[in-house]
Structures are given as C-alpha cells and as structure tokens.
C-alpha cells in the first residue's frame, strides 16, 4: 500500500496585543483586561478549511505555533502556511526551514492576498483567494510535481457548496473559543481595512441550514464551546440574520460576533440576539471625531452613523448584549486630545469592552498608498510590528511613541478596578431588568399559556 502523503498546516506565531513594552506590561498586570480578553483566541480557520478540502489519502496535521512549537524535522511532503501581516516574518522563516529540506511550501491567507508578490519570493506557491476555489488545483499540481508560483482565484467561491471546516484538526488543543463563519465580506469601504478588501465585489453567504449544522457539530466536538462568528459584518442582510438567530435559540450556545452599528434600530434582532445567547458584539466605531470619520469610508457611512453611537450603544446594551467598541487612533485629524475624548465616550457609555488600536497602513489598503506617497511608513518596523497596537507610521500630530502611549492610556483608564466597579453596577441594573422581565414573561406563559408581547 502506498504511504499516505503528509501535509502540515502551520499557523505562525505572532504577538497578541502590542509588542512594545508598555502594552506587554499592561497585559501582564491588568487583571480586568486579562479577564475580559481571555476568550479572544482561536485557531486559524483558513487552514482548518484547507484541511477539509484535502482528500482522505493525506495524513494532515495542524500546528498552531502560538500554542506549540513547530517541529522542523517532522516528516512532511507538503507544508501549507497561512497568516495575517503580523505573522508574515515568521511565515517566511518557517517556509525557509522546510524549503531547505526540499519540502515544498504553499502560502495563503490574508497577508498573501494583500501582497502576493512579496510572499511569492519566500514560498513555492502563493494562493490569492479563497481556499475553496484554489486548493484542489494546488493539490493536483503538487501531485504532478508541477506547482505553479501563483494561483489566483477568478470569481467568488460558492459558500453554499463549501464543506464544513475540519475542526477535529484543532480539537485536541484547548481553545476557549471556536470560530464559525457564516458569511464573508462587508459592504463598507474603510480606507484602512485589510479584512474585506478582497471581498469588495460581492458578499458570500452560507445557508442558514449550513450554519446551524456547523454549530451543532462544533457543539458535539468541543466541550460547551463559546462560539465566535468571524464574519466581517454579521448583520448585513437582516432577514437572513433574523432567521439564523431564531434557529440558534434552541442550540443553547453562548456567542459573540462583529458588525457595524446599524442593527441597533431593529428591536426584533436585538431580542433574538439576546435569546440566542449573544454575549457581545464587536462594533467598529473607529472614532468619535467628526473630522476623523470624514472620508474614512467612500460613502461617509461611518460619519453619518456617528450621531447614533450613544443611542445605539444604549439600545444594544439594554438588551443584555455587551458592546465591544473598536476604535482606531492616529489618523491625520487626531491629536493628543483624541485619546481622552475617546476614553470619555467609552466610559460615559459604559462600553462592555474596548479595543483602542493604532491605525495601521496594511499593505494593499488605500491608506498604505497615501502613507507611502508621503514617505511616512516607518521602514525599520518589520511586519511582526503590524499588530495594530504598535505604531508603524509617522502620525501627523504626534510621535509614534505618543500614539502607542495614548492608546495604552485609554486601556489604563478603562480596564481598572474603579471603572470596572462602575461598569459592574451599570450592567447589574440592566441584567436585573432583563431577569425580571424574563421572570414575568415565564409567569405569564405559565398562567395563560400565552407569551406576552
């Protein structure tokens, strides 16, 4: 019997949070931050999908270098790597080590999509696009000994036909959260966004049946998983979202996702979210400044949404769903005062959690083009500094160090005992209300057999 071919799927290590000493120290020392942040982990879904597209005659191993070291002597016929930009330098090192042994290396994932020509210099083949559309061809060519340097996808993959990710590859390791995808893409066009640039032409959706079947499987395979939906924007098609949420209720999971702010206007969605176990929605507010939001996306969608931020946060949190507000600082209209203004918004509105990042000119984004033209990229900072918490370009109204210091200052003012106490009080009153309402609803149901409206 021929020996099965060995495929290693490797996710290179990178820094969680910022690399600079101030961020690292805060992460080590702040109990409030640690408690909040510990579920924000997970495996590389891209590789788990590559695994699901690989036929059974391959012996497939998944290695997450953030959890375990890579064994560079491991038996391997083919290596597939993935990575976001912060993982790129390490991805190149890993590729070099395997290629030195004559093992071919194929790269895909976000960074390879953003800057394929550079990645091509470090690996045998680069995949630009979705694994579903490319991997079968890559394997075919590998078996013929004819790997091509570049595979580019034409047209979008039909997600309704996508096999479910092969989660069992990652199952032996402890991940507090399990990522599930229901769609790809976002209708907005933020100038700094590296996540959706490749899906701009068209959003892709899985069917509700597919997603429900995947969540059921995740529930079977992982012990009481906390499901994180990795969709760039979880609530775009509200009809579909409603249907999905209704179907999630009986599954009894806890979940979180990310979206733009607009769903706050839909009370039915808010109720369904709470009833289906939604804990938190990460919302990209980006900024609380009119100047900074002007032109941040082509249609000025976020600028127009700014006036709703306060009302939206209240409506969402009053439904028991925590708002995890994501802000990006250091754009050209931001000054040193921006940090305090942003922190004030976060605290005045009792956001459940926050991300305050340094705006980052990722390769392939319009922002990068501008910064390169103006000679403002800090060329001594390698990709591993593209963590979104380290300054990698020269801001207009402050130094890079001041940008890092300003963002960590926001964290300090938010994740501390004093504010956590206030936040706890605030959320307790929300939950008291919700628990009381639920008890009333249950009582009404028990006595009349009819649910209250």
């Amino acid at each position, binding site marked *: 019997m021929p020996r099965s071919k060995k495929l290693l799927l490797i996710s290179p290590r990178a820094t969680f949070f910022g690399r600079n000493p101030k961020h690292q120290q805060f992460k080590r020392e702040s109990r409030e931050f640690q408690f909040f942040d510990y579920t924000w982990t997970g495996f590389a879904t891209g590789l788990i999908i590559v695994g699901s597209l690989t036929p059974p005659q391959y012996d497939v191993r998944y290695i997450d270098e953030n959890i375990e070291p890579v064994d560079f002597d491991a038996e391997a016929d083919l290596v597939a790597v993935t990575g976001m930009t912060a993982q790129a330098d390490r991805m190149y090192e890993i590729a070099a080590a395997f290629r030195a042994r004559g093992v071919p290396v194929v790269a895909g994932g976000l960074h390879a999509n953003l800057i394929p020509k550079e990645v091509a210099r470090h690996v045998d083949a680069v995949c630009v696009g979705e694994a579903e559309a490319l991997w079968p061809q890559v394997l075919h060519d590998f078996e013929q000994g004819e790997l091509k340097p570049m595979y580019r996808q034409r047209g979008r993959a039909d997600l309704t036909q996508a096999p479910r990710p092969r989660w069992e590859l990652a199952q032996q390791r402890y991940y507090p959260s399990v990522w599930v995808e229901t769609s790809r893409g976002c209708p907005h066009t933020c100038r700094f966004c590296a996540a959706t640039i490749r899906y701009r032409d068209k959003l892709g959706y899985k069917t509700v049946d597919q997603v429900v079947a995947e969540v059921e499987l995740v529930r079977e395979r992982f012990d009481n998983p906390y499901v994180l939906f990795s969709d760039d924007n979880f609530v775009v098609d509200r009809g579909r979202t409603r249907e999905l949420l209704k179907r999630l209720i009986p599954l009894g999971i806890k979940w979180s996702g990310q979206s733009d702010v607009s769903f706050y206007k839909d009370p039915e969605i808010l109720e369904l979210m709470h009833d289906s176990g939604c804990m938190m929605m990460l919302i990209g507010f980006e900024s609380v400044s009119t100047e900074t939001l002007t032109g941040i996306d082509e249609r000025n969608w976020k600028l127009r949404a700014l006036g709703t931020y306060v009302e939206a946060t209240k409506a969402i949190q009053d439904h028991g769903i925590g708002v995890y507000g994501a802000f990006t600082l250091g754009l050209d209209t931001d000054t040193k005062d921006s940090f305090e203004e942003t922190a004030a918004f976060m605290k005045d509105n009792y956001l459940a959690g926050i991300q305050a990042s340094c705006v980052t000119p990722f390769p392939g984004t319009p922002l990068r083009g501008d910064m390169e033209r103006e000679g403002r990229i800090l060329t001594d900072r390698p990709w591993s500094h593209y963590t979104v918490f380290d300054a990698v370009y020269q801001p207009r109204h402050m130094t890079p160090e001041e940008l890092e210091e300003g963002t960590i200052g926001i964290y300090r003012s938010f994740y501390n005992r004093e504010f956590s106490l206030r936040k706890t*009080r605030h959320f307790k009153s929300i939950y008291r209300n919700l628990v009381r309402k639920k008890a009333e609803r249950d009582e009404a149901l028990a006595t009349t057999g009819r649910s209250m409206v």
Partner: protein
Amino acid sequence: MTTETHDPIFDTVCGVISRIAKVPPETVRADAPVSGLQNVDSIVLLEIIVTVENELGIEIDEEELFAIDTVGEFVAACRRLVAAP
C-alpha cells in the same frame, strides 16, 4: 464526597452557573476560580450574579464581588447575605 452536595445555596449557585454558562452542573466545583469558569466572561458572570441575587433575594455589593475569587467564596458571600437579618 464534598459537603456542598447538600447545601441549598451551593446548589442554587451551581444551578444558575450551569444554566447560564450552559455547562453540566457536575463540572462546577467550589474551588474553581470564577474568572476561569468555562464559557464565563465578565458579561456572563454578571448575568449569573444577578440571577443568583434574584433567586436568593439578596444583593451583593460590587466591592465585595471584586474580592471573590472562587465559586466557593461566591457561595460563602451568598450564605452570609441570606443569613443576615
């Protein structure tokens, strides 16, 4: 055999954690750190606390909450408040 099995307050706390965090009750142990409970982040923890307060008719002061590390300490705080006149 632990003493908690016959303690109604422990049973209430454990029942609420299990129901809200969606974990089997037998996995909730007195020595488990509250911040390390499976499926429990700070938001879930608040829902748990408020539900326990409701079921036991007590109110736990936020300062006191911050001093609590384990499920056992949470149960002890509840017990003190239930016993208080």
